[in-house]
Every structure is written in C-alpha cells, then in structure tokens.
C-alpha cells in the first residue's frame, strides 16, 4: 500500500477564503490546535475576486440603517426561503465583524467624518456596503491572511482534501488530502472539521468563479451522508463580461450600478423600468428623472429622499430582464445589455470608484468605460444552496462537521443580496471556528482508521494508472457546456431530465480519463479528481431544479414561470445520498417568531 503522512489537530479548516481564514483565526484564538488545508496558495482563494463590498448595518452613511432593516432586506431578497435565524444573526453581527477587520488592518474607504464609508447595492434599502473601491475581496482576504499567519495556525497550501474520515457512528474524525505539488498523500485526525470550500459555479461554462469552485465541500459533505438544502438556487449575476469570448463571464461589479450606472437595450431604452416585479412595486424610481435625482443625492452625500433606480433591483430580477431583452432581439452587439456609467459620472469619479473595472475593460476588451458603455450579460456567480447547518454553531447534520460561507446554506434563501456574501463569510466563519473549537475541548483525539485511509489513497491514485483515456480537460469543458445549456438561468422539465441522463454518462466518462503519470503538479490529475465532485454536485443541483415546479429567486422554470403561492412558498428541498444514489425530499420551512415577522414586508407577493 502507498505511504501517507499522518497529522493530529483539534480543528481542521478546509479552505482559505474569507470563511476558512476567519474560522481558523477564531479556532486558534479559542486555544485549539488548528490547521488550514487549501487548494491554492494563501491569499488566492475566490474571495479575492469579490468586488463591491461587505454588507453591514453600520449606519455610517445613512443613520436610518440598522440590523432590523438589513434583516428585512435579506429575507425579502431571499424570497422568504431564508433560514430566518441565520438572517437575524448575520444582520446583528456583521457590523462588529467589519469593525474587527479594520482593527486587523483593513483600510476601507471613508465617510467625510472619517468612518468606514458604505455604498448602495441592489436590494439594500440604505447604503450598506463597506468597501475599498471595487476590490473589497482582496482587502478582506489580505487582512485575514495577515491576521491568520500570526495566529499560530498550520497551513497546508496547495493540498486538496479528497475524502472525509468517519467513525462507525458517522461522526467526522478527519480527512485525507493530497499535496498538489509533490502528489504525497496525507491523513489528518481532527476533533472538528470545518468546510469552507466555497461554491460550485465552475460547473457552468459562463461563470465568474475561480478554478477552485468545483463543489468540493458540497461533495465531501454529500458523500459523508450530510444533508444539502436549496441546491436548485444558483445565482446568475446579471453583469458578467460578454465580449471577447475568452473573458465571457468575468464579473462586472454591481458597484457600477450602485455608483449610478444604467442598463440600456439596443434601442437605447432603460428596460429595468418595465421589469419591476410585484413584490418590489413602489420601492423604486418610476421615471428617469427620479432615478437621476437619486444618483445626484447619493453622490452629493445626502440622504436619499427619492426612490432608487430600478437597475438596483435584486440580481435575480436584473439577470432575467437582461436575458429577456436578448431573447426578444433587443440585445447588445454581442448578446448582452449595455451598462453605461460614462454618461452618469465623471471620468475621475469612475477611475476613483471603479478602478479595477476600468482596468479590466481596457486591458481585456479594449473598452474605455469612462467614454463608452460596457456589454454585460448573466454569469453563474454563486450557489445559495449547500450544506445544511445549525444556525448558531454551523454544525452540519453530521456530528463534528461544520460548514461556513458559500458551502453552507440557509442565510440567502432563494437569492442572495450583493454584499451579503463577504459579511456571511466573516460572521459565520467566526461562529464555525468558535463552535468547532468548543467541541474539540470535550473529546479525545480520534484514531485514524487505516482501512478508510488506504481506500481513499487508492482512489486518489487511480487516474494515474489509466492509459489512453480521454483528456480530463475535454470532459470538463463538455460537462460545463452541458450544464450551461440545460441547467442554466432558464430551465424546463425536458432539459433537466435530459441533463440527468447526460450526467449519468459523464459519471462513466470521468472514470476513464487519463492525464499522464507524473505526481508532481499534474494539473490533469487534479482535474480528473475534481470532476468527480463536479458531476456529483451538478446532479444534486439538477435534481433539485427538476423538483421545484415554480420560479423563485435564482431558480426559473420556463414551464412554471410564476412563483407558487402554495406549497413551494414555504418548502425547502433537502438532498442527501443513500449509498451511491442522490435522494431528495421536501421539508416545511421554519417561520420567524412574531417579533421578527413584524419586521418583514410580506404584504407584496414574492417573485
């Protein structure tokens, strides 16, 4: 049998984005012997790509804001399918988590009085996003990284976790990983394990996710018998780049619209005015004059007294509206919509507020956004679904296994508000680390089970023994094209069923790829292993999408175009694995207590 190295920890955190780093910092601070295992170099995780900001009701830019309004906005944006308790905790704790980042070195943009400034974003009633121009993710990951390296955490960089270890009761006791650099195998015993692996959007060919987004944590949890919820809800961000083809999908921050950018179709019409769903009627400006006045007030630093432009509707709404314009023949030259900031703000303001957008379009598309409009269209951006967790502790349905950040589910319901992800990472990352450390004080170091480890190691080495198979890169490209075509922004029963059939074929194909024999930084070998997670999670997403016979938030069915006012308005899809089969069931959603229900704005029906 192959060799492997063994390690013992109180807490293992898998992933080093915002949630993973924050969890590890908290676990170490609580006294736990903590390690992070991450696929990339430290500081390169997907969090680094976040642009617009982190939502927290600091009330610095508008003192009418507070946690109650943030809670209301989050629930409404999620079409009331959120875990209400997570939405409450998030709204209450995010401000402190942001202040803490400042003390760890984050340098957020300032208000005139010298406090952390906040910007407007879709679905947020008041300016709420703490930000650094349009590179807030970089600021947050660097801050946490700088804090983390002085916190006594062991960091295993460029290691991929392939399997979770469990005892006979199913309790998570550690994991198996391989070092991507030299191919060596490692087995970890841990009293608590935190999944912070991010999302799944690499399963779509047009996406804004980094290479790491292959659903690893989702698949690890599913394979270990944990429950996932809300897997049908995938956020297609309305504004990804559409041209040239090689950059298609790269994110264009919602901050462009937050700073006054407008969307037009090929006829020059601001189509968002005609796309306000019932539940948001009356919340947004109804004329261009009113929208322009709102921008003027906000730019001048005044409290807005008129309603915001309809471009700041929630992401699901804007994405579907762009999709409709293109489908009906009013798209931009390369099949998107025009996003114009050049005519709304001065060149100096654009470069100060949106420097990386300016740079990105100039370098990659040859477009000067201070002079001409951008072409934008929907891109797979975020998965609301993920590991079912306890709201307080972030523990999954498997004892000893925690999850935080995008891999966890509940906070965002059917649609996430922009800015609520960065704050999710630090609020629930902290809680996961805290409770993981707490659990580790009461139990003995789990014994490593040789049989499980050897079987995992064997599976990991399997692709290296195959010859004359398909290139894993080819299977990867075709899988993503299939998901884009059949499980994309608009879905129908026949296509979803056909996707499930194709996924079964992919399941066979991925067992027969070959990628050469080298164990040293063999990208093809790593991809062959990642593909297993992608197929598993694509299947879970497709199955959930097929089951939900309505349209809501990040899930749109062409054959059921309206939100259901009955069962689906208060029902969650739960996915789990029984042997090798993925199963699904429906569960009634817990409703908020009266004092929180009163804060909500349910009179207008959901969309």
């Amino acid at each position: 049998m192959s060799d492997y190295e063994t390690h013992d920890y109180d807490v293992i955190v898998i992933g080093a984005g915002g949630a993973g780093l924050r969890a590890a910092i908290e676990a170490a601070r609580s006294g736990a012997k903590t390690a992070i295992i991450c696929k990339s170099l430290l500081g390169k995780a997907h969090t680094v790509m976040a642009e617009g900001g982190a939502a927290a009701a600091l009330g610095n830019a508008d003192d009418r804001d507070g946690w109650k309004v943030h809670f209301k906005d989050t629930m409404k944006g999620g079409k009331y399918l959120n875990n209400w308790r997570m939405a409450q905790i998030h709204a209450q704790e995010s401000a402190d988590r942001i202040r803490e980042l400042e003390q760890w070195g984050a340098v957020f943009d300032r208000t005139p009085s010298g406090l952390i400034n906040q910007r407007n974003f879709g679905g947020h009633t008041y300016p709420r996003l703490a930000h650094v121009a349009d590179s807030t993710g970089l600021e947050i990951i660097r801050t946490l990284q700088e804090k983390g390296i002085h916190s006594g955490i062991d960091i295993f960089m460029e290691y991929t976790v392939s399997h979770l270890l469990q005892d006979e009761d199913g309790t998570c006791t550690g994991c198996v990983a391989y070092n991507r650099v030299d191919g060596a195998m490692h087995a970890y015993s841990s009293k608590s394990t935190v999944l912070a692996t991010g999302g799944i959007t690499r399963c779509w060919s047009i996406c804004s996710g980094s290479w790491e987004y292959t659903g690893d944590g989702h698949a690890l949890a599913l394979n270990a018998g944990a429950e996932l919820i809300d897997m049908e809800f995938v956020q297609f961000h309305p504004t990804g780049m559409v041209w040239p083809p090689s950059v298609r999908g790269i994110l264009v921050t919602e901050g462009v619209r937050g700073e006054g950018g407008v969307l037009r179709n090929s006829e020059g019409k601001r189509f968002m005015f005609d796309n306000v769903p019932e539940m948001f009627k009356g919340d947004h400006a109804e004329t261009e004059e009113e929208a322009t006045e709102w921008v003027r007030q906000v730019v001048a630093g005044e409290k807005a007294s008129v309603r915001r432009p309809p471009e700041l509707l929630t992401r699901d709404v804007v994405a579907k509206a762009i999709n409709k314009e293109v489908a009906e023949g009013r798209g931009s030259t390369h099949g998107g919509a025009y996003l114009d900031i050049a005519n709304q703000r001065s060149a100096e303001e654009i470069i100060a507020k949106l420097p990386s957008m300016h740079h990105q379009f100039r370098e990659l598309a040859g477009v000067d956004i201070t002079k001409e409009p951008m072409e934008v269209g929907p891109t797979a951006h975020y998965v609301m679904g993920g590991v079912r967790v306890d709201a307080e502790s972030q523990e999954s349905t498997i004892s000893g296994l925690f999850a935080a950040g995008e891999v966890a589910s509940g906070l965002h319901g059917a649609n996430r508000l922009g800015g609520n992800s960065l704050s999710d990472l630090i609020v629930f990352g902290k809680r996961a680390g805290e409770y993981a450390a707490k659990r580790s004080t009461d139990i003995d170091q789990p014994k490593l089970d040789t049989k499980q480890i050897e079987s995992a190691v064997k599976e990991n080495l399997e692709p290296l023994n195959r010859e004359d198979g398909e290139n894993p890169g080819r299977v990867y490209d075709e899988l993503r094209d299939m998901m884009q075509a059949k499980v994309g922004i608009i879905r129908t029963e026949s296509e979803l069923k056909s996707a499930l059939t194709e996924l079964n074929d992919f399941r066979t194909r991925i067992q027969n790829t070959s990628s050469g024999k080298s164990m040293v930084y063999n990208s093809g070998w790593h991809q062959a292993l990642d593909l297993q997670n992608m197929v598993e999670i694509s299947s879970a997403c497709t199955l959930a999408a097929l089951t939900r016979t309505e349209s809501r938030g990040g899930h749109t069915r062409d054959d059921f175009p309206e939100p259901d006012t009955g069962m689906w308005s208060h029902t969650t899809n739960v996915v789990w694995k029984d042997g090798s089969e993925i199963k699904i069931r429906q569960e009634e959603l817990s409703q908020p207590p009266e004092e929180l229900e009163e804060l909500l704005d349910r009179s207008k029906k959901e969309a």
Partner: protein
Amino acid sequence: MSDIKLRVFRGQEGEGELEEYEIELDEGMVLLDCIHRIQHEQEPDLSCRWNCKAGKCGSCSAEINGKPKLMCMTRMSDIIEETPEDEIITVRPLKAFPHVKDLVTDVSWNYEMAKAVAPIKGPEEPDWKFSQFEAKRAQEFRMCIECYICQDTCHVLREYKKFDVFGGPRTMVRLANFEMHPMDQEDRVPEIKDEFGISYCNITKCCTDVCPAGINITDNAIIPLKERVVDRYYDPLKRIWRTITDKASGNTTRY
C-alpha cells in the same frame, strides 16, 4: 480563427527545455487561455498556477518573451504584435524562485517574508477615524496581488540571490502599508533597515515598471521608507536631539 505557435518550458527542478505547441487562436484570447487549451487538447499534465483569470489574484505569473507578466492579462494580439515575425512566443517560469515543474515555481520564501513583518498594532477601541486622504496612501500598497513579479524582476534577488538579507519590493510594499497606516503604532524603522535590508535597493525602478497593479513601488513605498531609515540612523542633528531628549525608541521621525 488562425493557428499560433508557442514555446513553453517543460521540465522539473530546472531541468527541461522549451517545447513547441500549435493551437487554434480565437478572438480576444489571453495567454492563459492558450495554456489551458494546450492542457485540455494536448498535454493534461502541463503545470501552471491560476485562480481568477481576471488579474486579481496574482497566481499566473510567468516570463513571456523574457518579461514577467500575468498570463491572464496578456492579450495574444498584443504579444503577437511585439514578437518579431521570425520568432516564436516563449513562456517560461519565474526565474528568481526555485523551479518546481513547467510554469510552477516555489514561492514559499515570500510567505516567510510576510510572516516576518510584525502585524498592525492600532488602538484597541473600534471605529477608527481617519480621512479618505490618509486611507488612500495605505490603500495603494494594499492593491498588491502578490504575483511576485516585482520580486522576480528585482536584480538583488534575481541576479544576486540576496534572499537572506533583503526582503524585496513586495516586502517593502507591505512595510510601507503598515508604516503609512494612519493608526499603526509599531516602530518599524529598525526592521526596515536591519531585517529587511532596505539599503540593498538601489532604486532602479524595475519593480515599479512591471507591477500589474500599478503600484508606484519605488517612489511611494521604498524611497519614503529609505528616508525614514536615514532620518533615524544617519541624520546627525536628529541623533544629537535624540540623545538630549532620550527619545530614541519613540516615533520621532514620523511625518
């Protein structure tokens, strides 16, 4: 569209050679797309790092026609234009760091340097107050994406291998970030001088020229830090003043 030839370094631990690949080129492609196309169509085990493909993470640094750049921000149309007609585009790993395989190098020394810099030490009370003007100074340095292209270019590291006595431009940018943070109370001047060896930099500005984040490394980070070191250790008037007032450990040279 058309076909393009590339010569990519293949090999392990420094041993290897440039291998030629021919791939189809589509409109708007960047060099990283070409590397991915080689991986997906020809050589799955070709090694390269990448994450965001949008110039934000600093993973895909390589030497393209001898110049260190991010592969994700290098448009093929530009690189074809700058390559003489009788030559083939070359892609090599960063030269300054130990080679691992193909386009991947061992950049762990940079992480050791990061750890050696003392963390920020500010007031314990939250809600720090400082102006956008003050924020901006530190923010420039915080735009660093840690691609280590500056480190690769710096001749003190690249040619003279002074890894044991000099932190390199990336470390100077980090030190400048904390040193110019409006709330930081740490006295960093001694470590800037001794531990990180700022005097090894002779301000040739090579690092500034190659920075993909556009940070003015030499003028805004290194020179002000050099001035603080000079003020503290080599300004005769200030030395006398310190002796008189016995404030040698204070931040008397801050401005």
